[in-house]
């Protein structure tokens, strides 16, 4: 039950008929796992905290470096050399003391990732490597947890949402098969700072839509953004029947029938 103070704090959500008090209560009851407290994770976490998501779990093994502060806005000058998960927790609680924030200052192994995904309402991934994205995908598939994935490099960005609760939803591996090939990352290529702000905020928006049931999340759609020319492209993505990651879950669903 939301308090009078919370009703005031979240009134601009509650005015929205798609959210209303029930949606705000759903946000308060939700637990969101955010993998990576970097450029994408920073705005995603800040908006989810401000929006009143009741329980945030932040996983990041790294410490804050000077080169992070150009875009990782949840961290401040006085966060330098601190663990990102701890720095993020401190600033999120300063933003909204109404919520709980768990800091996990480590890369989660498969078992812990599985446990955390199972406990989460939604998982957000904004890490800087491909293997952790595939690990998040596997954990979400096996626990039936929606996954909001975004990435940004240089002047380009991508975002999509995968929801294994839906039989026809593709998974991350339907889009990018798991491999040892290196994807582009910003440590080598650079990234324009507001771009991660846009996409991290977009991830938070997807989370709010998934939790409240408002609108249509990006399930089965991949959006590409070219920041240099301000162009968005939407591509439809179907479930790949031969996807090694999610095809087995189709089979197990069928076996239960």
């Amino acid at each position: 039950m939301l308090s009078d103070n919370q009703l005031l704090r979240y009134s601009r959500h509650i005015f929205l008929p798609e959210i209303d008090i029930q949606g705000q209560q759903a946000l308060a009851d939700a637990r969101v796992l955010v993998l990576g407290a970097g450029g994408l994770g920073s705005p995603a976490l800040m908006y989810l905290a401000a929006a009143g998501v009741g329980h945030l779990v932040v996983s990041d093994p790294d410490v804050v470096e000077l080169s992070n502060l150009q875009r990782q806005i949840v961290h401040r000058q006085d966060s330098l050399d601190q663990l990102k998960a701890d720095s993020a927790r401190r600033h999120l609680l300063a933003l909204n003391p109404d919520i709980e924030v768990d800091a996990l200052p480590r890369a989660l192994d498969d078992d812990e990732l599985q446990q955390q995904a199972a406990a989460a309402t939604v998982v957000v991934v904004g890490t800087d490597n491909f293997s952790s994205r595939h690990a998040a995908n596997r954990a979400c598939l096996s626990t039936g947890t929606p996954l909001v994935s975004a990435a940004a490099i240089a002047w380009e960005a991508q975002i999509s949402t995968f929801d294994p609760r839906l039989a026809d939803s593709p998974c991350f591996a339907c889009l990018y098969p798991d491999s040892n090939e290196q994807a582009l990352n910003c440590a080598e290529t650079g990234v324009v700072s507001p771009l991660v702000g846009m996409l991290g905020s977009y991830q938070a928006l997807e989370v709010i839509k998934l939790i409240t049931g408002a609108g249509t999340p990006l399930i089965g759609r991949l959006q590409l953004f070219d920041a240099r020319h301000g162009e968005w492209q939407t591509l439809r993505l179907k479930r790949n029947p031969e996807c090694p990651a999610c095809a087995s879950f189709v089979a197990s669903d069928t076996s239960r029938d």
Partner: protein
Amino acid sequence: MSGQQFPAYLLRAFRVTAMPTVKMTPHLYRFFPQLEGQTVTVPAGSVKEALHAINEQAPGFTDYILDDRGALRRHVNLGINDSIVFDRKTLSDRVPEDGTLYIFQALSGG
């Protein structure tokens, strides 16, 4: 002359064959600067044929996005019009005359 400049009925009336347009991740321009700022068109046909047509304009292009068996590298993806291509091995999907082929890469930056 391209299919994007004239309505399809005019192209049909004058028996002008439209050519698919190719749009690609700007990252590829680092390696193939001759393609930047160009309207890249290819003959209608299979994805494989389209990629080899790009290779004629930018030698080395197929080596960059295809592996040694001619399949799409795993960090590369293709879309035709508004749909992502599934056949990454034989690249048999057809790029229609008035279509757009998108070439993009996996990003992992966050």
